[in-house]
């Protein structure tokens, strides 16, 4: 018989949310338990829960205290979190095209230097990765991926940039990610994708779901420009290779 799962910590986030914490660190097992609890809450349509926010190590559960109190919901969440993580029947897998280096990935050369290898090797390693969307957060569509190979782990920049372009694909710490909107970032910019993980008036507005698998494919700058125009017009660009 499998060892019982260690119970998560149930932490109050004010009077209308509970943080269900599985780990204090980024770890794959915790991330899987977060996503499993997220699915279980959706499956059981737990009363009073208004929305859930998965992160690498915890699930934030927003609820309506008029419908359910802290103690009753904590009990229910502890019960669901203690259940074995069921295998996922279907996982969506996306291939996302990225123009690496040059003006689209201004840190690629420096990353290669720091890691004492070539830009091509960095790209080859990044493209070879099999990633999972661990969380989407900070700004709309900012998709944090787990599964970055150890060789590419790098401390974040000492001085975060105030503005990085929409569609930036970057690495920071043990993570890699796709940011949708232009904004500040302390990560290392490897390339850009035309894929909009968030686009208004497009169906679906949000492309990726926590739990989706992601791989990257290298493209040249000309292809990026073409794809960017198509994406602007509402095309999804990302390729759904399994679902």
């Amino acid at each position, binding site marked *: 018989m499998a060892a019982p799962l260690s119970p998560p910590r149930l932490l109050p986030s004010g009077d209308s949310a509970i943080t269900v914490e599985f780990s204090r660190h980024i770890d794959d097992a915790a991330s899987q338990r977060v996503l499993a609890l997220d699915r279980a809450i959706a499956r059981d349509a737990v009363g009073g829960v208004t929305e859930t926010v998965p992160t690498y190590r915890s699930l934030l559960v927003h609820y309506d205290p008029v419908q359910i109190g802290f103690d009753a919901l904590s009990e229910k969440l502890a019960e669901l979190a203690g259940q074995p993580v069921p295998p996922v029947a279907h996982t969506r897998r996306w291939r996302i095209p990225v123009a690496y280096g040059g003006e689209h990935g201004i840190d690629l050369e420096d990353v290669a230097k720091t890691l004492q290898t070539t830009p091509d090797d960095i790209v080859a390693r990044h493209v070879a990765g099999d990633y999972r969307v661990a969380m989407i957060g*900070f700004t709309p569509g900012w998709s944090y991926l787990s599964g970055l190979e150890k060789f590419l782990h790098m401390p974040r920049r000492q001085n975060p940039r105030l503005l990085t372009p929409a569609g930036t694909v970057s690495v920071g710490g043990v993570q890699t990610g796709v940011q949708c909107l232009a904004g500040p970032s302390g990560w290392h910019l490897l390339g850009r994708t035309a894929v909009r993980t968030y686009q208004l008036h497009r169906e679906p507005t949000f492309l990726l779901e926590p739990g989706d698998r992601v791989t990257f494919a290298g493209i040249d700058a000309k292809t990026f420009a073409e794809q960017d125009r198509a994406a602007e017009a509402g095309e999804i660009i990302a390729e759904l290779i399994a679902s």
Partner: protein
Amino acid sequence: MTTLVISSIGPASSVQDGGRPGSQRYGLVPSGAIDRLALAAANTLAGNPPFTAAVEIGPFVATFTARGSAVRFALTGAPRNADIAKRPASFDSSMTLADGETLTLGFARGGAFSYLAIEGGIQGEPVFGSLSVNARAGLGSPYPRPLQAGDELRVAAASSATERRIELPAISDAPIRVVLGPQDDEFSDETKKLFLDSEWKISATSDRMGYRLEGPAIKHLYGHNIVSDGTVNGSIQVPGNGAPIVLMPDRGTSGGYPKIATVISADLGRFAQIQAGRGFRFKAIGMAEAQKELRNFVQLIGALPDRLRDIENFDLNLEALQDANVAGSAVSAIDTHTWETKTWHVTTPD
């Protein structure tokens, strides 16, 4: 067509309603009015459902002109001197602006945000069920950005409804109540005591993303980096410099700093209305009490229509206005230099 033309308006003013919850798992924060009770009271006076879109007005002067026909409206929240064509206008009352007349609002005193609700609401195209402006995400209607001079809001022509006033509970200046956590174990007992026993001030660099606090440095036990987790309105996160930030409706949906405590829902609006530079304190309460306060708050909003009164005579009104004008001489110099919309250049993803 009836419009409300904005001839002048300061920064930190935007169209806000109840917000757009439900997409935080995709990184989209709900936004919505920073003072829910004031929004609901203004809408109740204007004859609207409580969380209808209204104008959230930052602490600076603003003017609105009715065009096309009369416009019925109500003002609540941070009090200011207000007049319509030199006639004094009162807060917590409905009023009607005749076609071509201008409503002039002075600087806020005793608060930060006022609400201007218009009978019939503001016309726009909701996204995820809301007109609320979220400038970072390019969302909001009729303008996906803070309001500017020259903007025009399409509204309904005034009905002939009787003007009303509303009797709101007095605003308490008791400490802002918090529930400790979710990461209060990242701080020593002495530090938590320091947090709860100190006087705090809201920094001038605050905005709808977060209110920065000035006070003693809050030290972490294990460093200031935690692995990102989800945030709520009222999360009090402590970054590396030890100066806490209270997250507000335009916050990031996740954050990587330890959160020592969370402002209770019932006190969020009252907290948001504390003027920059004015001292206040926090008080920790238990979960049962916090949830009881939230249920009371929800009831209060639901029962706002019971607090409407007919405006019986002008004398009553005049008295209130005289009070307002006396206090109006005390417009704080702090106001004019604070509350600028300094957008998110300090925060980065984790």
